[in-house]
């Protein structure tokens, strides 16, 4: 069996800046994390993986299909879905409607079904709404299904984004800083949920995370990026002790130019 997801020698430039430089990356089912200081190229890599950016060089394959040149909606239909670092919900739609939009690629109906209202339309539509409510229940937002997304508290918005991404029935779920703005308690709860999801749905989850406690607790594998290059990879324990990682985060011993984020 081939690897679930594999990227080879991915390079992405913005003008003179090399945001991602020749990164090889592969992952299997379970939870993997990408960490690194601010500006290390983590989100850029996500955007390449989900078709928002086209890389200058390299290949990206998912279950043997190349993702390069595909549109984001086609990549989602193949089973790769994501959340955003700066929450991008459909602000004026209700929570459950947000989740329903996430199902778009899986709706087996066309425009004529919608116009003719034949029995199949009602059947499918009812199923969608039930699944929508079930997903909200799963992330703990059952009571807020009819709230407009923009009125939800920050943590709820992050969970709603997760539910919306799950609605597309992904095999690979990319989460960009899912615990940002959450308390330690909320973050831990979310990680428990992610673990359950991996078990129940046979998912692969890839996290970008700054909350080190969360990363080390939940990840099966951790990859460290710095200045667009992969500097370390392995089990959380191994990465924690890696000299280059410590240097990337804290700066070289004796150097005054330690500017990276903690």
């Amino acid at each position, binding site marked *: 069996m081939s690897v679930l997801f594999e990227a080879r020698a991915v390079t992405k430039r913005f003008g003179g800046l090399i945001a991602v430089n020749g990164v090889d990356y592969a992952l299997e089912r379970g939870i993997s994390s990408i960490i690194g200081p601010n500006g290390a190229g983590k989100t850029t890599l996500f955007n390449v993986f989900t078709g928002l950016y086209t890389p200058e060089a390299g290949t990206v394959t998912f279950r043997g299909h190349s993702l390069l040149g595909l549109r984001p*909606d086609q990549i989602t*239909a193949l089973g790769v879905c994501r959340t955003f670092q700066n929450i991008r919900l459909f602000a004026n*739609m209700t929570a459950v*409607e947000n989740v*329903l939009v996430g199902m778009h690629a899986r709706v087996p109906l066309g425009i004529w*079904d919608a*116009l003719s209202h034949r029995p199949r339309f009602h059947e499918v539509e009812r199923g969608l709404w039930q699944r929508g409510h079930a997903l909200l229940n799963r992330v703990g937002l059952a009571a807020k299904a009819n709230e407009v997304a923009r009125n939800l508290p920050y943590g709820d918005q992050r969970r709603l984004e997760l539910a919306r991404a799950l609605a597309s029935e992904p095999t690979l779920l990319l989460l960009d800083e899912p615990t940002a703005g959450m308390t330690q308690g909320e973050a831990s709860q979310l990680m428990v949920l992610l673990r359950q999801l991996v078990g129940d749905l046979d998912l692969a989850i890839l996290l970008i995370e700054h909350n080190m406690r969360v990363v080390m607790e939940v990840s099966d594998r951790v990859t460290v990026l710095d200045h667009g290059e992969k500097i370390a990879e392995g089990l959380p324990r191994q990465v924690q002790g890696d000299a280059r990682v410590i240097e990337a985060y804290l700066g070289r011993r004796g150097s005054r130019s330690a500017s990276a984020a903690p």
Partner: protein
Amino acid sequence: MLTVGLVTVFPRSILLFLLFQGSLLYAYVARIPNWLRAGILGVGLLVLMPVIGAYYNGYYLEVATQVGIFAALALGLNIVVGLAGLLDLGYVAFFAVGAYSWAIVGSPHANLIFGSGFPLAPGWFYVFLFVGLAVAAITGALLGLPVLRLHGDYLAIVTLGFGEVIRVLANNLDKPINLTNGPKGITPIGRPPVPFGMSYAEAFYFLVLLIVGVVILVNRRLEDSHIGRAWEAIREDEVAAQAMGVPLVRSKLLAFACGASFAGVMGVVFAAKQVFINPESFTFLESIGVLAMVILGGMGSIPGAVVGATVVTVLNLQVLKGFSLWLNELKNAGVTVFGYSLASLPTQFEPAKYERMVFGIILVLMMIFRPQGILPARRRQRELTKS
């Protein structure tokens, strides 16, 4: 019901006709059972309105027909602007495409192009309702293709340009092949055969009413399906919508084509009703007028679009005209206000000259005091009461 009685007693009073329309609106928003609401609106529109038109004042039926035409246009634009969030400033172009598609073959004019055999038999009108729909939808999709990459202001400018291109084409396609007869316009355009010995005015009223009914039905069904949700998602956040699996190109083209098709059908009706069309009927101002209806009624709201169309059309055709007449009467009667005789008012202040200004002021006041529109979409309303 009382207002109907009054309209029959005073068939010339614009105020009372407004009251009649107001009572229909009131019936729509009143807290009454659905069957009663449907009953009142049905009787009002299907029975009372034609009766008023036939026996008391035919002009009211004309106004009602115009309201219907613009309601369909507003509903079409509502899909593009209100739901999908694509600002289209050249919408009237699709109306023109529909109108010309029937005008050319429904008048003797087509003989100049295709030889003989025209105008087509009047019965073809009903076929051309669908031809107009299809042609406008294709035009909508063609416009959509090049502008899909544009957002917001840029999209608005390109659609504005497109609207002008269609009008200028209509103005200049009298050479080398005389397709549109240029600024002189096309006439006489054939009218459809009318069933049950109705007058043309009544027939067009019922036809427009039927089309508006179908348009509302289509609108509602699309809005309550995955297609409508995809449009709204695009309006809210294009990048996120695409990342969630919404195909942007197909969804936007569909929005353009749907919106355009409604305008196309009404264009065919308009051409037949007016008997004469020329490019002057399809100016930029008309596009803006339809946009004003959508915004005034409440973006993304179906009843809002209908009410917006009613308010703007009635304002233009009746209220402002009536206001002008009234001021003119005062002037002619030599009424004095604060010792100043209105008769000596310079001609620059003739009321007919500032109808547009009054319209503008009403729009400005609306946007300041009720920005969500007269009948806002459910969701928008909810959101405004919450925050």
